[in-house]
């Protein structure tokens, strides 16, 4: 129905189809994931020898961790979740033909590509960005870095995020199929909804913060310098968005874990309502924590206490989610296919990162470990490794949906186990270095830690090898995988009720929804008093 589907290369460049835009996001963000991993390999290798000139100079080391951080957070994790997963899944999960504003959607993607190109320039042009992905003034203003590139990349990316947020919030509110009530949404949809609310509120503040940086550096204004300005102002503005950005990544991940666990345990997600409430609490509470990045920055003592309570209390809704996942596994029918392995691996790594994150949030504890390797270890467990792994698992889960082909299960499991073992051990020595108070972002570590860092680097190579095998599996299986059945996991979720890959306009006729996506093993007649008439939309086909 509708206009005919375009073909050829133009079909990709000029597309406004949410599924094609999603694939574009996926490919671009995976490229940046690989860039981030390659930079990690070089930095890890430099640290093997405690010598200032080994492999790369100190200056280049600083450039590399700047681009590594920016690539991983801004160009991989956020775009893959809010670009790829949101685009591909939202219309399919709510029963819509496309998003509310398909052309704005295409614009979002191309602005993201522009930001990517600027980031690459920041890596290769003279005046390379060595300011950390945080870009704190005065160093970013007085130092040699070409801060304009940083600012413009953030601007373009921000414009992309804001238009994406407007688009998807509108889509979720207005384009749900008849009968798709808020209580029947996949938790993935809820997670993405929360993320876009954070984007809409937070990104403009970040854009303002870096704009003032630009003015200070090139127009001689004094927002962040000592002639009437205040360097700490930038840190407040930056972290007002940049800490909630962690939850921008986390919320969709929580949703995807819930969907995968429910499907592969073939059991209703435990405590759906409490899952949704927990996500919304995190969305709101996420804005009450940012000063924990300024615990030792010379901020007012009482403000550190206030924001500590926000920070550590966020552990409560997060804990609720973990326990609900465990309860979902209880009495389930668990099938350990690759996506499920990734979901379970995520829970394991995330728990380690979460517990150590509570410690980090404790203001008295942090006064010794702030900006040490403890922090490096914590966020690599809680964010970098666990969530990257879950993203890879999510790609496996919907791989048959996107391509109509099955991925290679053996290769998938091999990649998973390499990454899990590597990830579990690689960052553990960093906790020990953190407790000893060794600062992060050091190109040369004290000689007595050489042994520890070598173990750490070795296992990081193993984890990265697993990542590469996984990416290779996607490429190989997309080209020559075995044909997949329409619903290989026997999922009850709406996106699996249409053919794979989905037709151009998704649904021939907008479905009428009569049940929710988690009703595995629901006894006949159960819940009918609530007005449900049994049978999922699936059965219309």
């Amino acid at each position: 129905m509708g206009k005919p589907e375009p073909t050829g290369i133009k079909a990709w460049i000029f597309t406004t189809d949410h599924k094609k835009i999603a694939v574009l996001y996926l490919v671009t963000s995976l490229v940046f994931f690989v860039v981030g991993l390659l930079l990690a390999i070089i930095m890890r290798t430099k640290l093997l020898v405690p010598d200032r000139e080994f492999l790369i100079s100190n200056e280049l080391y600083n450039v590399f961790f700047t681009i590594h951080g920016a690539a991983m957070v801004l160009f991989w994790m956020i775009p893959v979740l809010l670009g790829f997963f949101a685009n591909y899944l939202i219309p399919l999960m709510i029963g819509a033909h496309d998003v509310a504003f398909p052309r704005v959607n295409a614009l979002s993607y191309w602005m993201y590509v522009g930001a990517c190109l600027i980031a690459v320039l920041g890596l290769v042009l003279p005046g390379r960005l060595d300011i950390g992905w945080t870009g704190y003034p005065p160093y970013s203003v007085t130092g040699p870095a070409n801060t304009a590139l940083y600012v413009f990349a953030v601007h373009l990316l921000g414009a992309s995020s804001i238009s994406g947020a407007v688009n998807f919030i509108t889509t979720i509110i207005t384009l749900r199929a008849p009968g798709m009530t808020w209580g029947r949404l996949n938790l993935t949809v809820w997670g993405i909804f929360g993320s876009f609310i954070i984007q809409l509120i937070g990104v403009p503040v970040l854009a303002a913060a870096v704009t003032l940086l630009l003015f200070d550096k090139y127009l001689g204004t004094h927002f962040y310098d000592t002639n009437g300005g205040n360097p700490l102002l930038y840190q407040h503005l930056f972290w007002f968005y940049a800490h909630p950005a962690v939850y921008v990544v986390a919320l969709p991940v929580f949703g995807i874990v819930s969907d995968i666990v429910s499907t592969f345990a073939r059991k209703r997600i435990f405590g759906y309502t409490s899952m949704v409430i927990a996500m919304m609490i995190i969305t709101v509470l996420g804005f009450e924590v940012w000063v924990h990045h300024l615990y030792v920055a010379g901020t007012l003592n009482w403000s550190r206490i206030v924001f500590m309570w926000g920070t550590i209390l966020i552990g409560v809704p997060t804990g609720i989610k973990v326990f609900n996942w465990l309860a979902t596994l209880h009495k389930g029918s668990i099938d350990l296919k690759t996506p499920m392995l990734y979901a379970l691996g995520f829970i394991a790594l995330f728990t380690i990162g979460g517990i150590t994150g509570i410690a980090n949030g404790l203001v008295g504890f942090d006064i010794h470990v702030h900006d040490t390797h403890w922090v490096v270890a914590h966020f690599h467990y809680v964010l970098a490794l666990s969530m990257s792994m879950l993203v890879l698992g999510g790609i496996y889960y919907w791989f048959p949906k996107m391509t109509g082909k099955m991925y290679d299960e053996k290769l998938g499991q091999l990649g998973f186990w390499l990454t899990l073992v590597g990830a579990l051990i690689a960052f553990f020595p960093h906790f020990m270095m953190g407790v000893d108070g060794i600062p992060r972002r050091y190109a040369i570590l004290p000689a007595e830690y050489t042994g520890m860092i070598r173990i750490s680097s070795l296992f990081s190579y193993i984890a990265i090898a697993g990542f590469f095998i996984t990416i290779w599996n996607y490429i190989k299986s997309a080209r020559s995988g075995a044909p997949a059945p329409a619903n290989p996991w026997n999922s009850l979720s709406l996106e699996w009720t249409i053919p794979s890959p989905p037709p151009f306009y998704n649904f021939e006729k907008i479905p009428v929804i009569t049940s929710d996506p988690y009703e595995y093993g629901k006894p006949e007649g159960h819940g009918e008093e609530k007005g449900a008439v049994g049978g999922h939309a699936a059965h219309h086909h």
Partner: protein
Amino acid sequence: MYKKLLTTIIMLMALIVPATMVFGGERVADPAAGWDKHYHFFGVVGFLIFVIVFVPLLYFVFKYRRTSENHTGAYIEGNTGLEIMWTAIPVVIIVLLGVQTWALFNEYRSVPANAHEVKVEAYQYGFKMVSPEGIETDGEFTVPAGPVKLNMTSRDVIHDFAVPAFRVREDTVPGRWTYMWFNASKEGTYQVYCAELCGPGHSLMLAKLNVVSKAQYAKWVEENKMKAQTMTPVERGEKLAKQCIGCHSLDGSPAAGPTLKGLFNSDTKLADGSVVKTDVAFLKKKIKAPKNNLVDGYPPMMPPYSFTDDELNAVVEYIKSLK
């Protein structure tokens, strides 16, 4: 439902209030010792949470495996009692940890009245310290055993004064004064790190902290007062140039900037292609306004230094001496 909620709130209060008194009332004389205690307490709690998550995770995965293609899990929508339990218990744990850390934090931020007060000025890439007697030292500090308070600022960008041995750190911010204190309980030499990214020399921005007895400290003060009066310009320049050696080597080895060895009166190619003699006039110009005199092959990263004329002469004399 309301009854359950009410019971939970009452139970929470019953647990939290006494715990607050136990943990909040405790005073520690030394934040470093308090930190270690706090860390051990957290270690036990953290390990317990870890076990509570991992044991069921592994057990369920092994126990509830899919037995046949059509096998399905039990149909359970949720359980309000359980939800309340795993909301309330974490709240109690969080409040316990929070109250304990709050008390510790108060110790960290309340400076004892008898603290030995010194001034620290951080710069790219080093720390300058001024003792209460007015003695300036660079890169190596001497303090008497007992509580020490640091009033800190920065000359250029944000740095951080971290002393892991005493479990404490605080940023130094240009244009602002920040403070921290620690109890230098044991004599010895301790490592100081910069813990805030400040440029290519960040990982070289180190210092030593010597904690000595009160008698030794008095001796150190006397010696240094004498030295300040009898110092030659080269010696004075050497002291001032401590802040240069993060980027400039003294032995000819390569670094972020050109080596200072043999620099004086050599021919140097500038970024605009011209070649200049690095005489006294050029060195002074370069130190005051580095960006106007960029040297070929090096990034424009040197910050300007605002030495007095005397200090500038001393630094140049010192560079002259490095043959």
